[in-house]
């Protein structure tokens, strides 16, 4: 007879299990504590009563557990519980790249983002300069707007000052422009695979529209002087130019796997036998294990 069988035999109908005996002493002790505390806000008599109850509670409690703990014999009542599932069919999720369809399985190499950013950055200069020539008769106007906004001594300059050449502002504008274009290009490289159907539509038009709208909303708070001088129509044209050119350049590169399905150690470049578990070892991968049917077959 196994241990479990012996245990079940022991606890058959009519057997008993002993459990701690019910007792009133905990409530007496607790009430005594509360009364002792209540006496501090009422009268001393209440505290004395509380102390007496506490003493009685402690004595009663000790007598409950010393020298032997009191228990009650509770008869075992046979109420069998049938443990069955109403949904016996089991389906395991397949472990495959198709379950990552909404995350990039492949992405563009880092270099594509850098190239896209450089190309887009150069392309957007053209509409910006055209705007400067048409609106202010100076190609330095948009350059100074960008460069001037990035320095601390921008103190409400006149239009003539902004339209003039300042080599410091030019250098700052180049630095801001190059850094931003490279970073946005890298983001394009990372994000475009998430929009597999129309990457250039997203990168070229939707994304520039979104961040132009965002800047339009906040620029009045961040830098009101700059906000007053930005022509938002031309701004949008230059952003879309950047987006379309950067998107096209990135999209021309061939994609590489992201490696997200690989173990973390493998992605770190560690190579060792058994690092990647073969799919066959990872348990049943698909299909339905029809436990109930199998049980029925076994019974029959």
């Amino acid at each position, binding site marked *: 007879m196994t241990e479990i069988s012996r245990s079940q035999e022991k606890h058959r109908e009519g057997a008993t299990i002993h459990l701690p005996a019910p007792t009133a002493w905990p409530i007496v002790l607790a009430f005594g504590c509360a009364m002792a505390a209540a006496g501090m806000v009422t009268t001393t008599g209440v505290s004395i009563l509380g102390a007496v109850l506490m003493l009685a509670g402690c004595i009663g409690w000790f007598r409950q557990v010393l020298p032997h703990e009191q228990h*009650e014999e509770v008869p075992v*009542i046979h109420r069998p519980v049938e443990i069955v599932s109403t949904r016996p069919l089991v389906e395991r999720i397949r472990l495959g790249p198709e379950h990552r369809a909404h995350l990039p399985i492949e992405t563009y190499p880092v270099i594509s983002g850098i190239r896209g950013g450089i190309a887009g950055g150069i392309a957007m200069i053209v509409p910006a300069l055209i705007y400067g020539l048409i609106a202010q008769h100076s190609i330095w106007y948009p350059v100074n707007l960008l460069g001037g906004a990035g320095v601390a001594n921008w103190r409400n300059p006149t239009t003539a000052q902004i339209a003039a050449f300042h080599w410091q502002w030019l250098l700052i504008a180049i630095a801001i422009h190059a850094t931003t274009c490279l970073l946005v290009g890298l983001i394009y490289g990372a994000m475009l695979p998430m929009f597999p159907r129309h990457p250039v539509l997203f990168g070229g038009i939707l994304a520039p529209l979104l961040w132009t709208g965002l800047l339009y909303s906040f620029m009045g708070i961040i830098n009101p002087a700059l906000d007053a001088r930005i022509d938002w129509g031309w701004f949008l044209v230059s952003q879309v130019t950047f987006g379309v050119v950067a998107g096209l350049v990135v999209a021309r590169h061939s994609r590489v796997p992201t490696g997200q399905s690989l173990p973390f150690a493998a992605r770190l470049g560690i190579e060792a036998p058994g690092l990647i578990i073969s799919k066959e070892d990872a348990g049943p991968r698909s299909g339905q294990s029809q436990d109930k049917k199998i049980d029925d077959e076994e019974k029959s």
Partner: protein
Amino acid sequence: MSDQTIPVSGSLQAAYPERGTLLEWLHGWIVTVDHKKLGILYITYALFFLLVGGVEAMLIRIQLMVPHNHVISPEMYDELFTMHGTTMVFLVGMPILFGFANYLVPIMIGARDMAFPRLNAFSFWLTAFGGLLLYYSFLGGFGLYGMGNAPDVGWFAYAPLTGKSFSPGHNMDYWALALIVSGFGTVGTAINIIATTVSLRCKGMTFFRMPLFVWLLLVVSALTLVTITPLTAAQVMLLLDRYLGAHFFDAQAGGSPMLWIHFFWIFGHPEVYVLVLPAFAIANEVIPVFSRKAIFGYPAMVAASVGIGFTSLAVWAHHMFTVGMSSAGNSFFVISTMVVGIFTGIKVFNWLATMWGGSITFSTPMLFCTGFLFQFLIAGLTGIMLAVAPWDWQLHNSYFLIAHFHYVLVGAIIMCIFAGFYYWFPKATGRMMSETLGKWHFWVFIIGFHMSFDTMHFVGLLGMPRSIYTYEPNRGWDTLNLIITIGAFVQAVGVLIFVWNLVHAYFRGKLAGPDPWDAWTLEWATPSPPPAYNFAVEPEVRSRRPLWDIKHPNDPDWKYEQ
């Protein structure tokens, strides 16, 4: 227990005792040491105070419904918001969650009772009498305004307002003494849960096979031990100030009110996690069962829970940005608070990943958990906003803070508690709660919730400070306050539907059977309601989902769990 115990004659003689006369029935409840009965007592006690605290909230909202309102007096208003906060945190939140823990922890780990059954009863009665003592202050408290003064200085009871000069009489003493008494009860229960979890697990139930519910209650209990202690210490210091002329919090005599603030929030912020982690625990059980999938990332969930426990001890001063700390202090508490967001983020992502690809059934418990997920996300985001010191400087003690806090306490904790009721009520009573009424409850409550607490954010952003008795018209607050109050009434209707559902189901509900949700943890392997001994034979488990293993012998979890 086996050879070192003696039988008691005339004690409870059956696993399913008959009700008998009313006195016998009452006697059975008063002398019980059974963890299930004590769990139900905790929950019933907390439900009673939930209604009391709810009525107080309704009175507060009626007062604020329109400008220049004088439905209740300013003195009564102060008492109401103080007692509402104290009640909901100490007499509702903690007891109800410890009630769930009492009922479920032993049965989930295959034990027959808590490790210390008598201490368990003592802890409950201490908590209960503590609450009654607090409410007796409405009759016996003698404060600034004479007899019948409940505490009236806010649930955080900042010094020096609690000193004899500003709070004469006894109302603050009632507050401190009542919470000390119930605090000892809380500590007793926490010790019991830890001891039970560590020492009474059934065969095969290693720590990493415990249900997440039990894991989280273990963390909560440890956190409770660490956090109740400073509160109790501070309350004893307060009583020494008030009774024996000590000067811990008296700045004019060399003490410091800041000491109280630090002590209180060293308790107060982890207390939020003491309340919210059991809510997470309920979600951890409900979401997988109704998604028909094992919980996603069990080890990460355990790690995140423990991480929250530790980190929550290092964030208290984000409640105190406005007291003027140093830049280093501000920066530390901003960053540590942000770190909590990482752990809770892990949990939210794991719950979503559990639902992802699952065969989801939106029964009432799952509806409430889904609502919880959305609302807790918002609560977390506003929490991160308030964790940024300059933002907090602008909005501290505004209704924005109140909205954030209630998004956590109501939007997350109360929602999960409702989910827990619908989920485990069949186990405790053997009867199902009505799904139709449950869905009405959910939708009515959630509409009221968003009317009240979404709007409360805006009124806070417009500058309405917390705790004000009334306000001037035409400050942009009038309509918003009206909407908040209407939302409160809608929520009250939702709660009444719930109460009716509860009562109706208890007497007339459909019979549940042992496992109505086709669930996987050990409590569902017992009859509903379970016998006094829970299990006639000690169960043995081989995985985190023991009932899954039995139900699917050809595809058990233990084959795959590491």
